[in-house]
């Protein structure tokens, strides 16, 4: 069998193309993820939430408002299509494995603040087919709204219902756009990012800042003298669905 010049050139061209394509692919795959200045193994951000303190403030929605205003979260009235980063959930629904027939009055049927748990072992990150969501060294589970293909695998994987999908263009539902923060497009997933944009400036998350009852405490778990570690040492805390092995970084004082 002889190889004609034409078929040889064709094969050579195709091989070169394949090699170039592979090189480009490798380069893209190894592109480093953006890391904040503070990111090192010495930081692990966490929240400790005291639902009782929160309840003392009554029908307060300050943390929620501050967060949603800062991050251009659309206010969509339709429950099916709503987008939320931090919200109130019935205590029994947030902690379904803690059901008791004789619940304490203090928490029974009462709302408790829930948000992304920024898990140490996040199922959403594991399943994302494009690495549009990933875990940073400081523990924050981040989102890249420009890479997300909107497959909603992460929505199915999150055992907390913490992820929201933009079923339509969110922009018409934003009352006042905060020019400091991007708005999202339709067809992508979003969620709480623990205010990484504020952390980068040395500020605390907006919800923590806005809470009048100091029911939300933010801090570094690695630092043994941090306020969160102090609380975790002195009070009994629980995490949502800890039995799933996701290791949430949001703790609740009960």
């Amino acid at each position: 069998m002889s190889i004609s010049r034409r078929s040889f050139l064709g094969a050579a061209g195709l091989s070169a193309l394949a090699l170039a394509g592979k090189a480009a692919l490798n380069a893209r795959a190894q592109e480093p993820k953006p890391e904040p200045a503070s990111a090192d193994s010495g930081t692990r951000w966490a929240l400790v939430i005291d639902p009782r303190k929160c309840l003392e403030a009554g029908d307060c929605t300050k943390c929620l408002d501050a967060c949603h205003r800062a991050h251009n979260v659309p206010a969509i009235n339709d429950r099916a299509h709503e987008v939320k980063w931090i919200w109130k959930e019935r205590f029994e629904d947030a902690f379904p494995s803690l059901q008791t027939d004789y619940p304490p009055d203090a928490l029974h049927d009462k709302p408790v603040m829930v948000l992304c748990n920024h898990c140490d072992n996040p199922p959403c990150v594991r399943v994302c087919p494009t690495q549009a969501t990933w875990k940073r060294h400081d523990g924050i589970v981040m989102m890249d709204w420009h890479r997300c293909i909107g497959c909603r695998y992460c929505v199915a994987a999150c055992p907390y219902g913490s992820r929201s999908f933009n079923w339509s263009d969110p922009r018409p539902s934003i009352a006042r756009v905060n020019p400091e923060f991007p708005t999202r497009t339709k067809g992508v997933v979003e969620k709480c990012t623990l205010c990484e944009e504020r952390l980068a400036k040395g500020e605390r998350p907006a919800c923590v800042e806005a809470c009048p009852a100091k029911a939300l405490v933010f801090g570094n778990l690695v630092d043994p003298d941090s306020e969160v570690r102090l609380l975790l040492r002195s009070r009994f805390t629980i995490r949502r669905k800890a039995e799933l092995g996701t290791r949430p970084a949001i703790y609740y004082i009960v």
Partner: protein
Amino acid sequence: MFMFEKAVVGGRRYWVWVLCLLTVMGAALLAYLRQLNVGLAITGLSRDVSWGLYIAQFTFMVGVAASAVMVVLPYYLHDFKAFGRITILGEFLAIAAVTMCMLFIFVDMGQPMRVLNVMLYPTPSSMMFWDMMSLGGYLMLNAVIALVTLSAERKRMAPPRWIRPVIVLSIPWAVSIHTVTAFLYNGLPGRSFWLTAILAPRFLASAFAAGPALLILLCLVMRRLTRFDAGRAPVQKLAVIVTYAMLLNVFFILLELFTALYSGIPEHVEHFEYLFLGLHGQASLAPWMWTSSVLAVVSLVLLLVPSMRRREPVLAATCAMVFASLWIDKGLGLIVGGFVPSPVGAVTRYVPSLPEVLIVLGIWALGFLMVTVFYKITLSVREEVAAS
């Protein structure tokens, strides 16, 4: 080119059928353009039921695609000659089914123009990455196999020897596509309904019942409408395969029910409760699930009685029942049932919207069109060979 010239010659009936399919596809395209413009808000999907008809159809069609192995394996590994004439029909059915799968995934995406990000940022930890790889590979394998074997048949030559290892490879590959599809669901910590090791075997059993059932129906339809007769033996053999697979499928479902109901763990019971009885007054899927169950039992009895199975009109009705039962079970209940109740206990009603149903019908129409064209090419080639 690819013998497509044979698909553009046909009688009146052929063209009316093709035109009908194209009309449905056109309507679906309009609906999809609207979805592209407005977003997935035009579907019945919601925060709680975030996957629905699209992903469920995808799951069901992966099964139909994988079932080609049920004609390929007996013919190529066991030299079961009776399947010689229909093996290629199974492979072409697989090609159409995989194409439909890919489209069902595509129309479910919020940002479809970014779909190649899956290739650009390959992520082995994601089962969706593997699903895309295995489906793409399976499509390639079947396209090559079908084309090469049909070309050989046309030239009245034995297929080249190198195709045999490719065919053998397609057998485990078929199993892999449905296994990986089950892995999409059964590795999610918060979704108890899917968190069951028997999901992959169950998928395979239902696939090997639904796919061959469809193939039997296609063979019987072709005998009536075309000059092609698959013969009695392969149809009866396929019926035996459907019987075994359906038996296993029903057995697996009963295992699921026992584990969930006997253990009594609420998060396992609730999903079945929602599907079959309804939860918090929401029971929209219950009539469907009961229909599926009744069809499964009736079809199984008809399959198990040899005198029934051997009567072709009864067999045709039985196959239609098997297909419908499994379509409801997998193409409707399995996905929606996994989302209700939600991780925070919400029971949300899901009813597909009209555009959503149209898009689904359009993809089915495309699948039928592909099968029609492929089968027409195959039959024309065979008639040509027989005539010369």
